[in-house]
């Protein structure tokens, strides 16, 4: 019990293992080849071999018992590689699901991040196009539906496997009241935030490497101060986002009845920190991809260059929950109390 902002030796190994895995198995060409659906079954099978889908599940259910602190490290590597596998969604969904085929990864789970509409439809579920099981809110209840995935969905900005899914057709199980879903959504926000930090980090690397190589006026464009200063903001936002997601993971893992004393800048409430992480990491990823693309000049706009894939996913992953204003207002209710109350 004392401040230690580093990764544990185990987490260092996890980061190394997953970065290495995605570097080898999922270079950007793999994400490119998986477009527009945004899913690569072969890659998912390799993720299964790694034991990743059940990492966060309890050992008595056949899982790896990893903490959220470990899972944010994994999620960041997913973002860094933009690997076309729904690992973030799956890990989040499994906070309430224990079925053996899900823990093993033979079946894929998705999180319906917005409640079902009056007709029982969950619209634009991330990973909904490929998931065998979807968990979400329908009316006043948290429900799980097992049904056949469509394996296709609307073409979208982030090349994400989105699809509308029914909350009523298929094998439907009621897990409990809608409030039960909070832990799933908190986890989804947190892991998505970590993935966005990874996107920002990769975009920074692409930009920095490009400006060191590219020459104009006889010198690397990275020697121009205007370019340098635009890039210098990125590691700041990335480190800030990473610290915030780590703090949120630590709070969700360790703190019950956390503090929300914003007036003293003392916040240890896990759910608030998870939403804060998502908002902050989304901004970081959008800024990093914006600037990195811009400093590629015209090539940044060319389909052939990888930065455009990161640019689109930064927006896709950060907007799929809802518009940031709505998310901020829900955070405001948690921080300051709701307007009525």
């Amino acid at each position, binding site marked *: 019990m004392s*401040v230690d902002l580093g990764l544990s030796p185990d987490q260092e190994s996890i980061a190394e293992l997953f970065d290495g895995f995605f570097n080898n198995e999922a270079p950007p060409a793999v994400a490119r080849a998986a477009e527009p659906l945004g899913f690569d079954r072969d890659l998912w099978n390799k993720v299964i071999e790694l034991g990743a889908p059940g990492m966060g599940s309890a050992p008595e259910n056949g899982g790896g018992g990893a903490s959220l602190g470990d899972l944010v490290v994994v999620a960041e590597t997913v973002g860094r590689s933009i690997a076309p596998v729904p690992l973030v969604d799956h890990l989040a969904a499994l906070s309430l699901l224990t079925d053996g085929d899900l823990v093993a990864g033979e079946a894929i789970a998705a999180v319906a991040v917005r409640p079902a509409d009056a007709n029982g439809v969950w619209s634009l579920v991330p990973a909904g196009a490929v998931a065998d099981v979807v968990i979400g809110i329908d009316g006043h209840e948290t429900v799980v539906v097992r049904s056949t995935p469509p394996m296709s969905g609307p073409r979208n900005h982030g090349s994400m496997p989105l699809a509308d899914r029914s909350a009523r057709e298929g094998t439907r199980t009621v897990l409990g009241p809608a409030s039960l879903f909070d832990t799933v959504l908190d986890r989804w926000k947190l892991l998505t935030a970590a993935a966005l930090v990874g996107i920002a980090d990769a975009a920074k690397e692409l930009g*920095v490497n490009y400006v060191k190589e590219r020459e104009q006026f006889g010198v690397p464009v990275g020697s121009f*101060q205007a370019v340098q200063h635009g890039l*210098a*903001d990125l590691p700041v936002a990335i480190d800030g986002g990473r610290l*915030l997601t780590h703090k949120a993971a630590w709070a969700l893992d360790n703190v019950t009845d956390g503090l929300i004393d914003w007036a003293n800048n003392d*916040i240890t409430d896990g759910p608030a920190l998870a939403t*804060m992480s998502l908002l902050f990491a989304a901004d970081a990823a959008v800024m990093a991809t914006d600037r990195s693309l811009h400093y590629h000049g015209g090539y940044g706009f060319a389909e052939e260059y990888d930065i455009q894939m990161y640019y689109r996913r930064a927006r896709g992953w950060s907007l799929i929950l809802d518009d940031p204003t709505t998310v901020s207002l829900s955070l405001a209710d948690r921080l300051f109390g709701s*307007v009525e109350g």
Partner: protein
Amino acid sequence: MDFSLSPEVVEFRDEIRRIVREFVTPEIADRMHTTGVFDAPELNLELGRRGILERACPGLGKGDPIEMYVMFNELEKAGAPYDGLAVALMIAAVVNKLGTDEQKERIIPSIISGEALVCMGYSEADFGSDVASIKTRAVKDGDEWVINGSKMWTTLAQVAEWLILLTRTDLDLPKHKGLTMFILPMNTPGITVEPVHTLGTEITNATWYDDVRVGDEAVLGGENNGWRTMTTVLAFERGVMGGTNAGVPLLRHFHEWAVANGVFNEPTTRERMARSVIDMQVATLLTMRSAWIASSGGMPGLEGSMTKVFAVEAYQRASRWTQATAGPAGLLQFHEEGAAGEGFVEYDARHSPVMSIYGGTTEINRNNIAERHLGLPKSR
């Protein structure tokens, strides 16, 4: 990953909170704005008396930079006038690290008791960002050094007992190599202090040095070693010693006003407020990281630059939107009826610009990050 303070540090923090509640009265906050001196001697003495300054000072007492971070963070969040203390403690830490035994014995006790303040003379009228080019000269004359020149922005010189002074001692060496840092009493004959009034009510100074004579006992960190002393100071200054959570008291003042005036239910206000709370949290985490690096034996110079760039702009953003949201009430100053946040909204709009200037401007910090963190070529 552990973001919890140890029980010992929590106890330390709670003691500081108790002292702050007792000593940081509205009168004290008011006094800093009428005198232009951002310091509270009674608070310093109490913190000194209880051994808190010694404990918080890097390298002394417990010497854990996490505790130094905790102390300054608490003072800053409470809106206490702590600038004087921050400089003094930072210099105590530098004397402890680089000074001779004689200097440590002579200087440090006066600081950690809360009695003596220190002012810093690096910048000159013609050299700020390019501080390694300063011209103030120190020339050896027998056993003595004779100092001539002038400094600009010598904040706290009107109240400090000690001065650290960056001088040029060798004209033939490259600019970073021919510098020497001195530490001397402010009452040494030959020093003149003239006030410089600022937008943020703080009164800083121009200082002149005419045949100021000191012995070798005043050399801090070795002859022609002044740049190393300077970078040690800056590593302590940037990011750990406060200056990274100035938006917290502002948000508190603004919130009180906004609730009382029915503005706080506006979605735009709530969204901006939530965003600023995120910013403040990130700023404090970056600060904590610098402190944590320092407490694990590292020198958080680069991380300090990163913290400062972020924290300062977060504060400036908060200041901009709170003043704009308050409208005309955001223009009214302390003690004027109807002033938003009792005048703090207006005050912070005047104070926030300086934060991206002193202690190394935002541009200098970005240069640092670009070159040392991103590995980009020297800028053109």
